């Protein structure tokens, strides 16, 4: 009993007991912050970096993109039509018939029903200005690069739709081919003219 009392008595009875300021070792604080950072990165990574399009079972925008139903020519044409009606149809007409004073026809146009699709793919990616003869009629208009902002898959679907509708017939255009053409054009597209367009491979 007397021992206990003795031990609980402060060594210096006149000073207030104090505690040191560094009770938590620095390495624990650093480790906690590092772990918090890593878990936040993990969380972000698995929620698509807060992309508003990414939900639930999909972990990233790329994964979501891969699940977009795009197989099958029917689906490709349907999607192509949707984009065409929104973007191209205003001037070229919903049925590809063209509009006087606005844009030449696409149905039966010799620039569209070429053997390959390289030439026609350049037009929406680079734009077109100056005179152009379509089905015996000369048009003097300019078209902005309407397809430059579309994704490769979208533009491929639109081109496939244009080349396979209203009596046109052509091989389907793939997204990879559009990507290759886009890469060839580079970052600064110049509007094409009739001559530069003719110089391109079909």
């Amino acid at each position, binding site marked *: 009993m007397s021992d206990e009392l003795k031990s609980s008595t402060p060594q210096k009875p006149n000073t207030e007991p104090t505690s040191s300021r560094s009770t938590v070792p620095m390495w624990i604080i650093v480790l906690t912050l590092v772990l918090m950072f890593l878990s936040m990165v993990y969380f972000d990574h698995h929620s698509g970096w*807060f992309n508003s*399009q990414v*939900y*639930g*079972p999909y972990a990233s925008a790329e994964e979501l993109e891969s*699940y977009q139903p795009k197989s099958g020519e029917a689906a490709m044409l349907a999607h192509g039509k949707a984009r065409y*009606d*929104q973007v191209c149809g205003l001037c070229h007409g919903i049925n590809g018939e063209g509009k006087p004073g606005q844009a030449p026809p696409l149905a039966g146009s010799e620039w569209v029903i070429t053997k390959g699709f390289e030439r026609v793919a350049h037009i929406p990616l680079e734009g077109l200005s100056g005179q152009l003869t379509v089905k015996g009629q000369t048009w003097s208009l300019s078209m902005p690069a309407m397809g430059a902002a579309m994704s490769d898959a979208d533009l491929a679907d639109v081109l496939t739709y244009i080349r396979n509708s209203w009596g046109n017939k052509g091989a389907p255009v793939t997204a990879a081919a559009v990507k290759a053409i886009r890469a060839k054009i580079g970052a600064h597209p110049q509007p094409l003219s009739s001559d530069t367009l003719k110089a391109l491979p079909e």
Partner: protein
Amino acid sequence: MKTGFRVFLAALLALGSSWCGFVLGPVLQLGAEKQTTILNSSDLYPVGRPGEANQGLQVYRANGCAACHTEQVQQSGVECEVVLTGAGKNPAAVTNVISALKLNGLNIDAANSAVDKITAAGGKAEIHITATGPDITRGWGRRHSVAEDFLYDDPVQLGSLRIGPDLADVGTRQADANWQLRHLYAPRSVTTDSAMPPFRYLFQIQKIGDQPSADALSLPKEFAPPAGYEVVPTPQAQELVAYLLSLHANVPLHDAPFTQPLAVSKP
């Protein structure tokens, strides 16, 4: 006032960080949400509700429907199925390739490689994408709910308890307005063992006049009013049902893809 300034700073930090997390973050993420197009179509989604259905949302809110019903379909996974659409010139080769392949319950990479193999053998195949999960199995929807679904809801009635079924797609599931009205008046007249309370105050029991009312509910004997009386829905009940019938979340979107049969083109 050294401590006062510190308290101010601490409060600013605490409130400011939670404001960033709860207000700024969601606004940056979803604040600019707008109509989008349905996959493989040029139709916009969602279209606004008609006025009656919009009032019905307020009836839904006033009656606390969200206490027992959710409006959010969950999805736990996604599955692909490879569907043969053409056998090509050499059906035997295609058959050989197919017999060695697994064709359903695939992920997208496996499905793509299966399609490549079939194409290499001369056949044609498509990938059908299906959402999976308990909610989808129950038939509560065909895909998970996304932010666009709630674009015109003010306030959004997400709900968190599922004493009753999810209602995100109820307009597709049960499109019969009379069924919905009967269900509101006497849930057990259409669903045995329903746990839903009857919402009889949304209806009026009145004496049949010269002619029975066109809106009168046709109820089974057990639930029918005494002879000479009829049950007529009030405007609130009509609005609520209009709202329920306007709840559709059944179209594929970019953020919730699935394959559905190509829509029949409009005339």
